[in-house]
């Protein structure tokens, strides 16, 4: 006996959910609106909502600042680079743990997870020291390596949970048909693993893009990604709300869009399979 849902109830829930949802989303919406205002309109009293002269001058102003394009480039290189490097290390490991589980597989997985829980300040000075010693302070390569290591446990875990869902019978069937190991991997496993690998890449680009401890403390200008660039707005002078908003929107827009696509994978990636 299905429960009858009255239309009235549905409308009530819709109104409540939309209201609260918009409230949560409001800071982003407000930033978006402000980014199209002139600096004077941005701080006008009372605040203006939609009816103002929409302008894109803030975006061009921010883009013309020499540091913004550099920060954007750095963000892309660091986020994508660390993710690719992580995938290179993680795919073989997750693959082996999922398809050839040994008695110690579980311990290795949990140990990897435990490295993720190490507080960054615990290793702050040694890293600064080693980076200076190697001449890698304020370099992209340093951040690529560090962010790769920070996110490697998550990448391994996500891939492991995806690979484990690939049924072993398919492999056996392929073997019975006389498939070699090479064609087994190429034609049977890879097509089934691609969606899992894709979502893992997506989530990790997001995490690396938003990382804001090492990126702030280990860069100055040359390798500074958007996290660091935006934090330099912390002590600004004069009118700057509209420009801050434009810079913010440009920094979060690509990730917001990627995030909406990956929301289903988010739970898997961040709870290590503990919630299904």
């Amino acid at each position, binding site marked *: *006996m299905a429960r009858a849902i009255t239309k009235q109830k549905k409308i009530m829930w819709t109104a409540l959910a939309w209201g609260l949802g918009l409230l949560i989303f409001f*800071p982003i919406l407000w930033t978006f609106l402000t980014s199209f205002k002139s600096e004077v309109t941005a701080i006008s009293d009372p605040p203006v909502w939609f009816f103002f002269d929409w302008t894109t001058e803030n975006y061009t102003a921010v883009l013309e600042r020499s540091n913004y394009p550099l920060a954007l480039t750095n963000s892309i290189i660091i986020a994508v680079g660390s993710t690719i490097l992580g995938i290179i290390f993680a795919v073989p490991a997750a693959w082996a743990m999922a398809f050839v589980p040994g008695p110690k597989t579980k311990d290795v997985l949990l140990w990897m997870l435990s490295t993720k*829980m190490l507080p960054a300040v615990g290793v702050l000075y040694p890293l*600064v020291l080693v980076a200076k010693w190697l001449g890698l302070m304020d370099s992209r390569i340093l951040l690529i390596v560090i962010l790769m290591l920070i996110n490697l446990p998550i990448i391994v875990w996500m891939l492991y949970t995806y690979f484990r869902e690939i049924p072993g019978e398919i492999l056996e069937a392929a073997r019975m048909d006389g498939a070699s190991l090479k064609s087994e991997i190429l034609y049977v496993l890879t097509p089934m693993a691609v969606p899992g690998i894709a979502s893992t890449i997506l989530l990790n680009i997001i995490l690396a893009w938003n990382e804001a401890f090492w990126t702030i403390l280990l860069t100055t200008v040359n390798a500074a990604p958007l996290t660091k660039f935006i934090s330099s707005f912390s002590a600004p002078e004069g009118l700057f709300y509209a420009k*801050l908003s434009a810079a913010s929107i440009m920094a979060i827009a690509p990730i917001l869009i990627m995030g909406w696509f990956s929301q289903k994978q988010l739970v898997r990636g961040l*709870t290590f399979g503990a919630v299904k």
Partner: protein
Amino acid sequence: MATQQSRAAARLMIAPAVFVLLVWMLIPLCMTLYFSFADYRPLRGVFEAWIGFKNYESFLTSSSFLKAVGTTLWMVAGILSITIIGGILFALLLDQPMFGQGIVRILVIAPFFVMPTVSALVWKNMFFNVDNGLFSYLYKFFGMQPYDFLSQAPLFSIIVIVAWQWLPFATLILLTAVQSLSSEQLEAAEMDGAPGIKRFWYIILPHLSRAVTVVILIQTIFLLSIFAEIFVTTNGAFGTRTLTYLVYQRVLESQNIGLGSAGGIIAVILANIVAIFLMRIVGKNLDK
């Protein structure tokens, strides 16, 4: 049917990942441990390799340590209670029949993808700012004196910012748990005449307890190392100096490496206590 050969190959495939993580974890941690027993202040040219537990002693007995622990606890507790209660309510709300559910979901999840420095700056300037912030307009609109959030209630302000960022995470995970609840059980309870509150208390909440535990543990681990939000808003002033921030200041600002390293080791130990509980839950799940 893993043969000897495939076992060996598997080990070879796992080895690189284990090796880099091992290096990443052990070498810096050992260095921190080494420095924590040394008197090392590079700016003054002081270096004495072994001074015993003096750093630990002075770090643990200093008034800033106890204050920092208190601030950290308040911050974590405040953020956890907002996100857990809000998350449960949002999860239940999103589970109701409605129009445009997918869009509401997207709206609620969005803050999680905003980078910490952006959300901290947007809140600091466009909402909390005493001259031009939106909250000041609200206060004035209702004929009240504008309130300077970041200097008069700095801890609360940071809690609001971070809770805003983490509410989506709690909502998303609790929603996943809510949706796995069997509707038959709920319908049976409803037919037996159990009112909404009772259904929530005796059926829904126990079902959610595991997910809530996971959210608490994971968030605690991340929240213990909040950095950017404090860095951008108060820079550790006005009683917002958490343990993480205190160690950062000792190490990088005052360059007292020995003392800061001792603090770092203490932070590692505290985080490990939380981590052990989380690992137990995750480990149990692996056996299934």
